[in-house]
């Protein structure tokens, strides 16, 4: 870890983090404000007018009756997957592959720092920024709920929900980082770094649609981020957490090892 590089990386990328945070908080605020225990039936009635498959794909099927389950269904089923995923794709590519492709990596490596230090610093930035993004969303979620509906949010369950979102994105950002380390061309880094998470995303949408496509869920990491099961305390979630952590360790570790050994065309 090199602090100077970490600072420079932060300076070059914080604006992306800020943009995603603002968008995500806006959605969170709108969705929280839509919660109304009395008129929840109305909302459910409205959703019934939409095609059932569409509602299911977005994970809006069961909105529950509490603020926590409402947010879990409405925000943590779909939006919390999509936005951080795009963030990981963009930033993951910028941290390593872009420096190699453009050649600016040559300057980083012509300083008395090992490749390992450089690439580990970039990995730490991605981990830290994903943590910051989801951490800030968690705090905003609590603040928004408490200001609009004091005492309604089950903070313990809400934190658990966010912890799983964080683990999911340690794994997803790991995948983006791995491809960023593996490829020397941003072209391929983006193709795979975006392709794999988007494939997971689409598979997850299809699996939600109905029993017929249920099995597709086994092919997607996002299936592990299941708000209903997390809130219900299903034993499945321990396995899910384990798989997510292992994926994160393997992808980050693998990316770092590959980068440390490979030939760089710079």
């Amino acid at each position, binding site marked *: 870890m090199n602090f100077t590089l970490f600072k420079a990386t932060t300076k070059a990328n914080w604006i992306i983090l800020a943009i995603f945070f603002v968008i995500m908080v806006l959605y969170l605020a709108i969705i929280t404000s839509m919660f109304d225990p009395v008129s929840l039936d109305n909302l459910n009635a409205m959703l019934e007018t939409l095609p059932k498959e569409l509602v299911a794909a977005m994970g809006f099927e069961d909105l529950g009756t509490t603020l926590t389950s409402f947010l879990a269904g409405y925000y943590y089923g779909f939006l919390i997957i999509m936005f951080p995923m795009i963030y990981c794709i963009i930033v993951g590519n910028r941290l390593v592959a872009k420096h190699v492709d453009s*050649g600016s990596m040559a300057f980083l490596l012509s300083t*008395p720092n090992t490749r390992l230090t450089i690439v580990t610093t970039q990995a730490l930035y991605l981990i830290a920024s994903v943590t910051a993004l989801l951490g800030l969303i968690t705090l905003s979620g609590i603040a928004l709920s408490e200001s609009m509906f004091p005492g309604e949010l089950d903070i313990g369950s809400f934190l658990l929900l966010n912890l799983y979102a964080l683990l999911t994105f340690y794994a997803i950002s790991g995948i983006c980082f791995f491809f960023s380390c593996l490829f020397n061309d941003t072209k391929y880094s983006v193709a795979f770094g975006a392709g794999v998470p988007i494939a997971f995303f689409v598979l997850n949408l299809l699996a939600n649609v109905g029993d017929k496509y249920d099995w597709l869920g086994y092919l997607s990491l996002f299936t592990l981020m299941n708000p209903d099961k997390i809130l219900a305390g299903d034993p499945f979630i321990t396995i899910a957490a384990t798989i997510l952590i292992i994926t994160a360790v393997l992808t980050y570790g693998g990316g770092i090892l590959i980068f440390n050994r490979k030939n760089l065309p710079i």
Partner: protein
Amino acid sequence: MIEVKDLTMTYKNGKGIFDLSFSVKKGEVFGYLGPNGSGKTTTIRQLLGFTNADKGRCTINGLDCRTQTKEIQKILGYLPGEIAFFSDMTGMQFLNFMNAMRWCKDKTRTNSLIERFELETGGRIRKMSKGMKQKLGLITAFMHDPEVYILDEPTAGLDPLMQRYFVDLALEEKARGKTILMSSHSFGEIDRTCDRAGIIREGRLVDVEDIHSLKASQRKAFLVTVASEEDVKLLQSSGLELGGINGSHVEIFVSSNYDRFLKALAKCKVLEMDIPSQSLEQVFMKYYGQGGQ
């Protein structure tokens, strides 16, 4: 100071470098000459530890170039052949960043180099001209006062005045006992600074010679336009080495026989004489042989 031994690295397309061996002594300026695509940059990447060798090894100051990069970089100044910076930074921000990455606190040398090369440090690097970027790269390579320099085509993109400033700087560093390896595809560029030069062709080191014997073997081509057929015949029988003859235009190669060349020309009516710019292969025909285009 720099040792390259049996270094081999083959790319997928069959190009690369093969069994390279040479060494650069401390305090020496070594020119690394070769046409584009001959393996100059490939060798430099090996010296910087960016790529893994198939065979052989290279060391700088006794340190292995692939595994001990951190120690090497403390005493090395490197100028990449293709310069790409952090384009959102300004020139000054980049220099400060590189100094911080090197834990180098003393800015006096950086500032004097900025003045010397008249670098405009305020603007974003993205907006800089090629020459300005090259200057920034040179300052980055020189500012931490390293022991060894590896410079990949250092004067590319510089105007003649800045090229002279660079030559002065290189000579100063040499006088201070620094070791320099610089690659180039033009002989003129290293002519004034180097003690010895290695000539590389298609990934193989053809020869390593001191610069004076290289100068002696350097061939110049003169394109002479004469007045009549008889003059052409006269030149043909003069024993000079002739290239293509096109009407009254005669190409004559001269390496050390200037006297004979002038005497032969004195007998003809010369209408025009030109020295066309030449590729490295033409200049060093001796090394490149007839195989080089």
